[in-house]
């Protein structure tokens, strides 16, 4: 019966009045607000980075990698593909064989040799796009649709195709391809001629260098007919030749580099360029340039062999680990050069088979099924998550540690609430005595302060939610504003290879942050509330 019950209407009224009149408590609300906002922003950005990274890793790696332990690989990939198909064909969308060997890439920059350690990967351009997003990371629009290891006449992107802002950052690629190759060849020839002329004809009347250049260029500039024989060239200037066949001259004939290319390769863009502080890519070498690659043969012991290759495109996954390490080449060319084709049977060997699963397939289940069929001492079968396990775990751990540290901000706000509430309890001692004299119970008194803490938590978390979401949604504009104000870069695309700060707002994470903040705020008011509840009515009434 209400007449005899002790209710809680007064708690609500007093909480509300304290909230409106005790401005000092709002100081702790600000701490909670900032803590919640920071956690929302950091979690969203970290989730964005993590998602972006995982997408890229997964885009580069196929779902499951079927590998040989040996560098020489395993024979007869077609037989292996059929066996894999038989074991888990219902869940497989596509497969492609690859050969991967460590190698050294060397190229000349202004007369100096630059050598880089790389992973030299032989791929089948017809099937590789089925198992990974490889194609979409290339710089030539036609290659993105169907990769060819033939050098293109031009038309390489001068903007980053993955960058939505389309800022022109790669003017050097404007002349990449055959025009660049011809220009380079002519420059080299001219330089050579000039040196010879200088040596032999001191007394001869010499024409100006400019005149010589014009003459030479006129003689060698591309005519209506293509560099290759007309029968081998399509209307758009592309070769009809087998792209995997090394474009070497016939035996005994000297190769004309202005018209012919070596075996095409696609190196990672990080091997050939660097990004300056202004976000513009500086290229050390371009499509059309020749490079030397040294790699081991398949025999035992492996011997180092070296060959010339022509860069036909660049690969840019935005994962610097891959972009500065991978060089792709036609698989049959690499197999031939490494001696991975059985001379008697003509059956090739490969290092691995990349497997792409159907969208609803179960990754680990397929892996386990294949592990049952293929002996583990001969083959290593791993999912893309297994292969990047340490990296993904490191990112998860980083997020966990960051969350703990940031939660301490809210914990500090909690201590603020604790201190302020103790102060308020002292200040309100007489009021507590009055309430007790009017019949308020001790638990009711505690309820006022717990409710007050809950109100502060709700207010702080609510404000933090609004602030955090506002910052997250506008983080790139805020970044630009901060950069404009301070004159220094807050987010350097040359480090991250993202043009914008990626964010993902996860409602579950935000829910936990809000609940955590409210629990801390309410929890911090427990001790002051208990102290208030324990006050003796008469002593409280006498408090000055």
């Amino acid at each position, binding site marked *: 019966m*209400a*007449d005899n019950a*002790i*209710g809680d209407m007064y708690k609500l*009224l007093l909480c509300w*009045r304290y909230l409106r009149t005790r401005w000092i408590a709002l100081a702790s609300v600000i701490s909670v607000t900032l803590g919640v906002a920071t956690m929302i922003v950091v979690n969203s950005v970290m989730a964005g980075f993590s998602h972006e990274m995982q997408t890229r890793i997964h885009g580069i790696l196929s779902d499951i990698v079927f590998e040989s332990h040996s560098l020489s690989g395993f024979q007869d990939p077609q037989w292996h593909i059929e066996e894999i198909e038989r074991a888990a064909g219902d869940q497989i969308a596509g497969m492609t064989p690859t050969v991967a060997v460590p190698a050294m890439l060397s190229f000349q920059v202004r007369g100096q040799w630059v050598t880089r350690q790389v992973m030299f990967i032989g791929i089948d351009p017809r099937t590789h796009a089925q198992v990974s997003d490889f194609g979409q990371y290339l710089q030539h629009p036609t290659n993105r649709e169907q990769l060819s290891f033939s050098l293109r006449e031009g038309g390489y992107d001068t903007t980053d195709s993955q960058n939505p802002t389309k800022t022109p950052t790669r003017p050097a690629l404007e002349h990449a391809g055959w025009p660049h190759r011809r220009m380079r060849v002519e420059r080299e020839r001219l330089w050579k001629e000039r040196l010879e002329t200088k040596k032999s004809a001191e007394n001869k009347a010499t024409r100006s260098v400019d005149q010589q250049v014009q003459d030479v260029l006129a003689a060698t500039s591309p005519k209506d007919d293509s560099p290759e024989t007309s029968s081998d060239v399509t209307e758009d200037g592309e070769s009809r030749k087998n792209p995997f066949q090394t474009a070497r001259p016939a035996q005994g004939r000297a190769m004309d580099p202005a018209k012919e290319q070596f075996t095409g390769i696609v190196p990672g863009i990080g091997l050939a360029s660097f990004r300056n502080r202004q976000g513009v890519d500086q290229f050390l070498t371009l499509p059309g340039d020749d490079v030397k690659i040294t790699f081991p043969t398949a025999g035992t012991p492996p011997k180092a062999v070296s060959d010339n290759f022509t860069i036909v495109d660049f690969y840019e996954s935005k994962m610097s680990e891959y972009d500065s390490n991978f060089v792709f080449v036609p698989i049959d060319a690499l197999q031939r050069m490494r001696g991975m084709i059985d001379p008697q049977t003509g059956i090739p060997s490969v290092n691995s088979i990349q497997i792409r699963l159907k969208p609803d397939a179960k990754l680990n289940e397929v892996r386990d099924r294949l592990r049952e069929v293929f002996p583990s001492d001969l083959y290593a079968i791993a999912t893309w998550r297994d292969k990047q396990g340490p990296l993904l775990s490191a990112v998860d751990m980083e997020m966990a540690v960051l969350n703990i540290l940031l939660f301490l901000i809210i914990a500090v706000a909690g201590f603020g609430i604790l201190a302020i509430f103790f102060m308020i309890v002292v200040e309100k001692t007489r009021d507590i005595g009055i309430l007790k004299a*009017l*019949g308020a119970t001790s638990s009711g008194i505690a309820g006022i302060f717990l409710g007050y803490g809950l109100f502060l938590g709700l207010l702080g978390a609510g404000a933090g939610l609004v602030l955090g979401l506002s910052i997250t949604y506008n983080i790139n504009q805020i970044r630009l504003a901060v950069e404009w104000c301070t004159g220094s870069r807050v987010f350097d695309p040359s480090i991250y290879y993202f043009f914008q700060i990626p964010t993902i707002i996860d409602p579950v994470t935000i829910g936990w942050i809000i609940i955590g903040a409210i629990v801390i705020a309410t929890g911090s008011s427990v001790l002051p509330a208990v102290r208030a509840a324990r006050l003796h009515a*008469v002593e409280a*009434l006498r408090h000055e």
Partner: protein
Amino acid sequence: MSDLEIPSKTPLMLETRQVCKQYQSGTTTLEVLRGVDFTLEKEGFLAVVGQSGSGKSTLLHVMGLLDAPDSGEVWINGRRIDNLPVREKDRLRNSSIGMVFQAYHLLPELTALENVLAPLLIRYGIFDWFTQRRAAQEKAEELLDRFGLSDRLHHRPRQLSGGEMQRVAIARALITDPQVLLADEPTGNLDEESGAGIIEALAELNQDKGLSIVLVTHDADIASQARGIVRLAAGIVDIMNSGAADSAA
């Protein structure tokens, strides 16, 4: 129904039997009440007088269930209340005992009207309050109007004079229709005129409404306006004149 409206044949509203109370101050034990026997008849109006430190306020606190006696018994309307559970005491204090203090003790965050409503706000839950609010508010306004404060309903305590604050405190004590009103030197902080007004109001409540009142004061003139006088000295009842004969007359 109030907790004290229990059918009782006893003519006594309030009674203490051999109530003792002592306080510990460091190593010193201070005996404030040393076996107080006190009785207040129904509809009685007693003034408790005595020198400072004689135990007047402590006795009032014990009778008002704000403090527990070390020994002895407290009875209200024929029911022993000193040994009730804490929650029951809280309930009794809210519903059956009205208290007025020397320092008014109004809640500064609330308006005059809300202060008067405070005991009902404590009594009702949120949902009950919405059904009872209109009646409670009307009653509070009526009480404030009776004490000449109809134009001060929405003033905060700091905007009121001492006399006005004390009248608000009396209205607050009456909002629950208590069976007994315990007033602890209600005129102590007031000027003579305001004090006289307060005592007059209490006398009227006793006379017109039959409200049992215990008034603690050290002022003999004010005490003389009560129907009976109890004098405390060194923690025991020195003189007790319950005024029953006057009342009967």
